[in-house]
């Protein structure tokens, strides 16, 4: 993918530097001006950033190969280059869109009225939103492993305070867990980068790709960096911090954390495995990543079905969806273990990541709106919510449907690509995981749908008003996810992919998935699907539900999570070396 001349800036390359720095400049100006300017600066930057992302897309479309920019005119290995290929451009554009949506949503919660003094929440939220944006853009376009380390730290330092924006003891605890675990992850990543420098004398990704050999030092480096990044992404069993952190933060912050922050470290795993060290990565080690992903899907989904609170359900759904993001790795290899299906797998991964970012942001916002309106988000007591809050509930359900892969959502197309790849490489077992994941997602969509459409025992009267702008922002993001595959085929992907999308066969698959999901929900949910909400708590399929919950609690304790981190690193290194 780096076939072009590496030592020249391309036309429009300076836009990459602008995309990284614009949010940071906004953050600095917001900090300087303070007060109402916090949100004003953010709202000026959102359209600017979106326009910049569109300009980068246009420049990329007019260039053969990636956009390149040499900072200061110094070429690697001495200098730092910014680069954007198709994946990076897609992520830049998607993040800009999601930030705009979240920003509109957050105006009701964190906007300051005229004459209002600067509040702590507004100060932290708007500045950190911009910081997350800048850090993510840097992750997508930076071509240097050390700059990426700084970018990852930026992302963590901006993400942690968002977790405890509410300031309660429980959220502070969640933030501290997140911080400490993420720090371990960054040190492991840095250790791997240091080993690579010791072995090959450069930190520039394309240069490394040219010289790196399948030898012990590269195995160790890739294993350590991968484990560190998985800890930051919260892939099962390293999701120690995710559910309390994403479940406890204010909705506008949860949306940032769940939709955006975890994508940074995930994207870096993708880069390392598919672009920097394709010769080092092995099919067997990729099976490990996808195996953890499959475990994440099962555990995350079952525990999601057992949750009592809507926000925690969404948080555990994120645990499962992160697993989905790692299924692409074995699909890059063919049956002989060579990485020949790289582009297919990478497209599917990026598409899935964008689909999740948009849908999950919408779902968290919807959950937050339900909480704000009803004063609680207990799933069992949501009867009548559909009538009371039609737009927010629609956002939640549309987001859920988009995630499970209903035509023409982005997740549908991503699943289609991965299924084709699994087919081509003869890895039939991943077909089951892919479809099973979709069925689980259907399960919790059905569960929530049945609750919100139920007739309330007493009519809901005491509703607090919620902002209409916020509701429509949530719905907008969810709908964007639902229509994502149309955008994808208008853009870079071939239109044939959608040729059979509306056929009877696809419809049949959807119905089967819904049926399977409903069965799963009926078997595993805390209370009977159609019974009275007051009925007793059930253990779920002969105790399986409670067993998963207990297992989840066990692996989310600090010592077990740390041991798991080292075991993942060790196993990954061993599998890489064995190939």
């Amino acid at each position, binding site marked *: 993918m780096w076939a072009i001349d590496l030592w020249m800036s391309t036309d429009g390359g*300076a836009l990459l*530097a602008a995309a990284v720095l614009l949010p*940071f*400049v906004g*953050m*600095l*100006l917001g*900090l*300087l001006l*303070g007060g109402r300017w916090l949100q004003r600066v953010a709202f000026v930057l959102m359209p600017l950033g979106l326009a910049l992302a569109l300009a980068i897309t246009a420049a990329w479309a007019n260039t053969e190969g990636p956009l390149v*920019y*040499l*900072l*200061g*005119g*110094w070429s690697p*290995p*001495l200098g*730092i280059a910014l680069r954007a290929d198709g994946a990076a451009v897609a992520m830049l554009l998607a993040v800009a869109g999601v930030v705009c949506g979240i920003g509109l949503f957050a105006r009701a919660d964190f906007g300051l009225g005229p004459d209002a*003094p*600067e*509040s*702590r929440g507004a*100060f*932290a939220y708007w*500045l*950190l939103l911009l*910081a997350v944006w*800048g850090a993510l853009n*840097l992750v997508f376009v930076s071509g240097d492993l*050390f*700059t990426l380390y*700084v*970018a990852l*730290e*930026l992302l963590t*330092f*901006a993400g*942690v*305070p968002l977790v*405890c924006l509410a*300031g309660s003891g429980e959220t502070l605890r969640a933030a501290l867990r997140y911080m400490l675990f993420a720090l371990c992850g960054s040190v492991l990543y840095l*250790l791997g980068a240091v*080993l690579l420098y*010791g*072995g090959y*004398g*450069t930190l520039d990704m394309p240069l490394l790709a040219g010289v790196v050999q399948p*030898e*012990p*030092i590269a195995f*160790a480096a890739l294993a350590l960096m991968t484990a560190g990044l998985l800890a930051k992404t919260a892939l099962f069993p390293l999701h120690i911090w995710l559910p309390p952190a994403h479940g406890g933060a204010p909705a506008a912050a949860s949306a940032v954390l769940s939709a955006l922050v975890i994508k940074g470290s995930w994207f870096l795993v993708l880069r390392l495995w598919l672009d920097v060290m394709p010769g080092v990565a092995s099919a067997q080690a990729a099976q490990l990543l996808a195996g953890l992903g499959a475990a994440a899907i099962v555990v995350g989904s079952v525990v999601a079905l057992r949750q009592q609170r809507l926000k925690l359900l969404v948080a555990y759904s994120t645990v499962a969806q992160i697993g989905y993001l790692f299924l692409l790795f074995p699909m890059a290899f063919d049956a002989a273990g060579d990485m020949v299906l790289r582009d297919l797998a990478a497209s599917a991964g990026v598409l899935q990541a964008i689909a999740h970012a948009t849908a999950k942001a919408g779902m968290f916002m919807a959950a937050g709106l339900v909480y704000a309106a009803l004063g609680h988000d207990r799933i069992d007591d949501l009867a009548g919510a559909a009538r009371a809050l039609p737009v927010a509930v629609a956002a939640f359900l549309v987001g859920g449907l988009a995630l499970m892969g209903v035509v023409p959502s982005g997740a549908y197309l991503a699943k289609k690509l991965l299924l084709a790849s699994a087919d081509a490489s003869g890895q039939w077992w991943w077909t089951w995981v892919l479809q099973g994941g979709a069925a689980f997602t259907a399960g919790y969509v059905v569960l929530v749908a049945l609750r919100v459409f139920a007739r309330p025992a007493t009519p809901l009267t005491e509703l607090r008003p919620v902002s209409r702008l916020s509701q429509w922002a949530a719905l907008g993001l969810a709908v964007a996810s639902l229509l994502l595959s149309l955008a994808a085929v208008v853009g870079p992907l071939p239109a044939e992919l959608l040729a059979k999308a509306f056929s009877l066969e696809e419809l049949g698959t959807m119905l089967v998935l819904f049926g399977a999901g409903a069965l799963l929900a009926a078997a595993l949910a805390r209370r009977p699907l159609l019974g009275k909400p007051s009925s007793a708590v059930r253990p779920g399929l002969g105790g399986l539900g409670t067993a998963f919950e207990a297992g989840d609690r066990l692996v989310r304790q600090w*010592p*077990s999570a*740390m*041991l798991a981190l*080292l*075991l993942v*690193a*060790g196993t990954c290194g061993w599998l890489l070396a064995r190939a």
Partner: protein
Amino acid sequence: MTTIASGVVVLLLLWLALWTVVARDAFLAVAGFVVYGLLLALVWVRLAGIDVALTEAAIGGGLTGALLLGAVGRLRGTEAATAAEGAGAGTRALAALLALGVTGALVLGVLMLPEPAPTLAPLAVPALPATGVGNPITGVLLAFRALDTLLEAIVLVIALIGVWSFAPDRAWGGRPGPLYRADPQGILAYLARVLPPLGIVIGIYLFWAGADHPGGKFQSATILAAMWMLVQMAGLADTPRTDNRALRFGIVIGPLVFIAVGVLGLFTAGAFLGYPEGWAKPLILVIEVALLPTLAIVLALLMNGPPARPWASAGAPGAGPLPGRHAIASRDRPTRSSDEGGT
């Protein structure tokens, strides 16, 4: 001779690290870590990294150590409670095994490093004259990899935003850090009057020397920050409020000037963060001069922590159960105000 000296340093370092990790309580661990940090500076000298040694001594050992020591005093007996949650013997054994495995794998990696070692020094040396600075590390930090240095300043600002955001709502807008009270005639106040002028001179000297010799803005900023904190601890001047416009200007000036010079390079040198020929040294100087106050202020504020004193409701800052700062002659030790904290 030198190998023996290095061997002794290594043994001491490992022993201190182990002791710090297994020490009985947090205070001992932190005390061990402070000594460890000083010893580490020696390691850097032996590794031909005087610049790194200065940074490590100032920031890694000094500021981090002070931060941890300050934290140890405010644990309020939480140690006993968490000790009960300690890992069991089996977990500890497994942890030791896995940690040993990581060390073993790294040792193998180190022993298999290629010979001759890959290095960028032959590329950096001929490129250095174009930057106008004599110290190759300064050249890397402000020319070849200027983006990293810019990002590092931004990291510090984001960390400060994060730290401030941990403030309780009732304290928001107040002055960061505890209120220190000290006898105005006491020894600390004397020190805080005598030392800062000298410290400022030394700080600026280190800053100036950084262009051609070891030293530079970070080491200098640490000394300036320490001087400011000394003045605070002696009760001579409180920190400004978080919404103080001048303070915020000082925080953002460095990165903003850095970015502005970078954009200037886009038009004059054809590349963002580039310097037009012959102008490299003065522009680098402009950046460094702008970064110095930012770094000094942010480092000191990171040490101070979030605003924690309730002020909006209680009237004047510092109004609390303790008598005013001039009334206490017998308590000339720096005393944290007792009204911080509580829920």
